[in-house]
């Protein structure tokens, strides 16, 4: 079966006065129909840029400098803006972190829903309104017929994020990109939104790219997870493997640094240092200056993603490194 989304060797660059910064370097992954791919990483890892690159919303002067993005086998990264606009919202739905900024505060939410529905379908005004009502009901807004004419500020944060979910699903997209959909919400509401996102996407058969820094959310929601570091994928694999038996030293450190609810620990594992800035990404493996297991090839040679057990990992610990290279 063709994957819903294929990203091949994606490279995103930002030219600046001080030279070209590479925000995303050689990132490849697939999302199968109905699958939830979690993309996790710390700030500056490039997870949001990956999302924006897929939907073609990289702000100039940033640009996709290499690789391709395929939606159901069709290239979309080189489409003219007019055609990309038709795909966005129709075939790819989007949910962003802050529901207050993704809704227009000056329009009633009913108007925003109807507008979205009518842009992507040939429904009449009244039919679109009916559909908007059923969408609001589906995302769990109580008494939708009285709430549909409310303004975004009259909703609470959780309710707004429900409306944003309704907007994202209005045109029955094949792929939903959710960028930190629960980060701005309280834990109790966060759990509601995760459950809703999961249920809706399963019902509508949409594939999901879930971008978050919260491993807990990934563990609950995703089927597979890609761990990003300094603009590259360090490890990608089934969520259970990556969380229970991480391979890459960065993933191991990351998992160890999360305080646990279930058991006591005296000290958290700490990764020394911090994520490198884009202006100074180390050579070779970008994680080597912080890595407790770095050895000969790491500072010089960049590891590629290679299959290891049921995952793929970019780390020299798991691959024989070229002997010719070692001789240098």
């Amino acid at each position, binding site marked *: 079966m063709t994957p819903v989304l294929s990203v091949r060797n994606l490279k995103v660059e930002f030219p600046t006065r001080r030279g070209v910064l590479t925000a995303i370097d050689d990132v490849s992954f697939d999302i199968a129909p109905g699958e939830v791919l979690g993309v996790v990483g710390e700030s500056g890892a490039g997870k949001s840029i990956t999302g924006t690159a897929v939907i073609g919303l990289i702000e100039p002067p940033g640009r996709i400098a290499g690789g391709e993005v395929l939606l159901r086998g069709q290239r979309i990264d080189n489409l003219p803006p007019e055609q990309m606009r038709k795909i966005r919202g129709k075939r790819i739905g989007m949910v962003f972190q802050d529901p207050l900024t993704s809704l227009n505060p000056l329009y009633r939410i009913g108007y925003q829903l109807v507008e979205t529905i009518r842009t992507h379908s040939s429904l009449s005004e009244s039919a679109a309104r009916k559909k908007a009502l059923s969408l609001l009901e589906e995302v769990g807004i109580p008494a939708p017929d009285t709430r549909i004419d409310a303004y975004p500020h009259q909703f609470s944060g959780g309710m707004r994020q429900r409306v944003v979910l309704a907007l994202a699903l209005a045109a029955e997209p094949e792929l939903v990109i959710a960028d930190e959909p629960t980060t701005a919400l*309280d834990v109790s509401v966060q*759990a509601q939104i995760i459950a809703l996102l999961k249920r809706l996407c399963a019902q509508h058969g949409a594939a999901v790219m879930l971008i978050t820094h919260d491993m*807990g959310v990934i563990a609950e929601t995703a089927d597979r997870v890609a761990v990003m570091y300094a603009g590259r994928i360090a490890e990608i694999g089934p969520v259970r493997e990556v969380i229970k038996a991480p391979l890459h030293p960065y993933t191991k450190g990351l998992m160890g640094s999360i305080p*646990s*609810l279930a058991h006591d620990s005296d000290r958290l594992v700490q990764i020394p240092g911090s*994520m490198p800035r884009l202006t100074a990404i180390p050579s070779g493996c970008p994680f080597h200056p912080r890595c407790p297991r770095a050895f000969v090839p790491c500072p010089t040679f960049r590891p590629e993603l290679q299959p290891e057990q049921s995952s793929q990992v970019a780390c020299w610990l798991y691959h024989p490194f070229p002997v010719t290279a070692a001789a240098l």
Partner: protein
Amino acid sequence: MSVMTSAAPPLASEAARPLVEVKNLGRVFDVSKPWLNRLTEGLPRRLLTAAAEVTFSINKRETFALVGESGSGKSTVAKMVVGLIAPTTGEVIIDGVSMSDRRHDADRRRLRRRIQMVFQDPYASLNPRWRALDIVAEPLRAFGIAQSEAETAKQVGELLRLVGLDPADGTKYPHEFSGGQRQRIAIARALACNPEFIVCDEPTSALDVSVQAQILNLMRDLQDRFGLTYLFISHNLAVVRHMANRIGVMYLGRLVEVAPAREMFAKPKHPYTRMLLDAVPDLDLTGRKRKPVEGEVPNPVDPPPGCPFHPRCPFANERCRVEMPQPILTGGATVRCHAVEEGRI
């Protein structure tokens, strides 16, 4: 006293008396429209009860955590404890001295240097126009701790090293540091005047997990070394479990449960605590089915009558709808809940 000397071990009598006592603390904010609008539009005054009847105590060398969702009043309590806002009711007693009693002005001034605060956002809590070393030196100068500039510089260097920064970086400005390093500067500043009690308001929620781990480890090391007492505010239950000895759960301005950390995580009593614990995503992949949580936190301007949690509570009955539950002691925990009191749950 140099910053590098650790605190003396507490005497037996000292350990018995709590360092911080918060008694019946409450704060009401006036969120009314301006007077003329109220007059012309016939609007009543609107009062927001940010905190009410908050009572707890913190022993020396203990970490007491306040958890709750946004709007639960935890930061308001933190600010009242350090004296950044004045309480409407109740009082804060630190080391036996009431912070709201005018008669103890001199005592209070002496106490103030023993209390420090670390804020949530290290991007906003450091003056962007000051070099790191001036930021850390400010309390030393303000309280006249260091006698000379040379001594100030020496102590600043020690403080920066203590929090894991290079003293040579002291000449940099805050924007040249990462978020984690900035929070280290904020901690160094808090430690500068040798405090005993530090109020930390969400100290790691603006940080990435790996950096959060560094800061939490640092805070625990410093606590062991200097015998610090923390009031730790957070919405992250896993972080709280890692840091705290005792935990208070707040909901709509009230403490609904106070219990030793272990006990609370093993056997949460209040339905809200149970719900909070249940809502945390499960990293252990046990496949545990989570109970869907209903509803959201109500608007604190217009709280529900009776127990503020009753509209979301699966155990609510008629009494919960009309009568505010009073704190009761059960096991090691203090709980405000009719259902617990009546033995219904």
